[in-house]
């Protein structure tokens, strides 16, 4: 049952307005624009490369949140899922996991490329990928909660960003700190573990909020 749902969600997430291509395209565009505004000096760019890549990753993850629940809500599929045998909490979890696989994973692969292109050390690539993957998990679940809350309002986009951004400060701080510490040779494991803890806590807790928000929007 969960497998069928996961397959459906993956197919929908992939087809939904470009999905991965849109997010990675945004990441690429933003990483091209940033040096143009910051100035081309390699030393300065290298100093901010990993941090910039992290911010761009967070913003790129926000892009496709709007469609996470909205289309199912509009065409009535969410009503059916609500009536179905699976609890809505599980449905929400599967949706977020699909979002993570389709948007988070390509972004996790693209983030180190963007960071290295800006001048980060290539040795940091594995850590960047891992941190981006963990951060993507947190972004998907916390962002999913924002998307589910905005369902009742009919004006998603900016509202979701406003709701979600303050909640994303811890993962951005932990992820940025892990990569930054690695670059300057400080211990980086602690922030990485904190990032993982935040992501797992979000994955454990937000499905309840998402299910409550979906039921509220459907009522």
């Amino acid at each position, binding site marked *: 049952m969960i497998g069928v749902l996961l397959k459906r969600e993956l197919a929908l997430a992939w087809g939904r307005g470009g999905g991965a291509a849109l997010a990675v395209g945004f990441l690429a565009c933003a990483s091209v624009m940033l040096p143009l505004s910051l100035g081309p000096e390699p030393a300065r760019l290298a100093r901010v490369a990993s941090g910039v890549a992290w911010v761009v990753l967070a913003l790129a993850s926000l892009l496709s949140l709007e469609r996470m629940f909205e289309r199912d809500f509009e065409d009535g599929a969410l009503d059916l899922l609500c009536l179905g045998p699976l609890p809505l909490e599980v449905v929400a979890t599967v949706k977020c996991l699909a979002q993570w696989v389709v948007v988070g994973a390509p972004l996790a692969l693209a983030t180190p490329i963007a960071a290295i292109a800006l001048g980060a050390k290539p040795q940091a690539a594995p850590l960047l990928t891992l941190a981006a993957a963990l951060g993507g998990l947190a972004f998907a679940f916390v962002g999913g*909660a924002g998307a589910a*809350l*905005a369902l*009742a*309002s*009919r*004006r998603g986009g900016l*509202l979701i960003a*406003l*709701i*979600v*951004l*303050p*909640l994303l*400060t*811890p993962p951005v*701080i*932990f992820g940025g*700190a892990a990569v930054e*510490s690695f670059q300057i040779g400080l211990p980086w494991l602690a*922030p990485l573990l*904190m990032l993982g803890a*935040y992501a797992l806590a979000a994955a454990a*807790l*937000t499905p309840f*909020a998402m299910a*409550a*928000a979906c039921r*509220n*929007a459907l*009522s």
Partner: protein
Amino acid sequence: MFAALANPLRFMAFSRWAAPLLGAAAAVAIGVGLVFGLEAPPDYQQGQTVQIMFVHVPAAWTAMLAYACLGAASFVSLVFRHALADQAAKAAAPLGAAFTGLALITGSLWGRPMWGAWWVWGDARLVSVLVLFLLFLGYLALRASIEDEAKSARAGEILALIGLINLPVIHFSVEWWNTLHQGESILRKGGPALAPVYLLPLLLMGAGYSLAFGALWLARTRAEVWKRRATSLALQAALA
């Protein structure tokens, strides 16, 4: 006490005299606190600017108090489905945003002469208060964008509780982020032991701000109750 006040009629009867009373007490506390505060001697390092503390620190305290009230009211509303609790939550949010904004503005005005900058990213407290401000704004935006009153209430409760769980994490992460980068000694203001001549006006102002928040909160909740009554009366008249 709270159980008794859950009855809207009793709440309206109580708040009718409680709100002005709290307001008067707030005016007295703030008035006396301001006099003491203005008479406080200049700090040996900060000079006269230390007096900004008396309007700044209580605003930050009250901002946190307001979020605690918002979270508590949202919890009661979510669990017990009390209309009054939701009205209280809705009434607390703009006040919280205002006090947070006040804390940010006065902090900035204090920071300019003290640190030589309007805003210092290196200070953990500044950043976590800013995030608190964004949380209030997000709550207000969500409530404002949902027209259906019941749905707006529900969504607001969920968001307020998510924020309540997140606040300690945000505070911790920001604090930790700050210490990772540097621990600037300039940013430590006052020191832990505050002389009584500063502590007394500070506590008075803190009490005054909190009482003012209480008075405004009650008044706003009353207005919210009246508004819903007016809406339902208008609805009845239209249906009749």
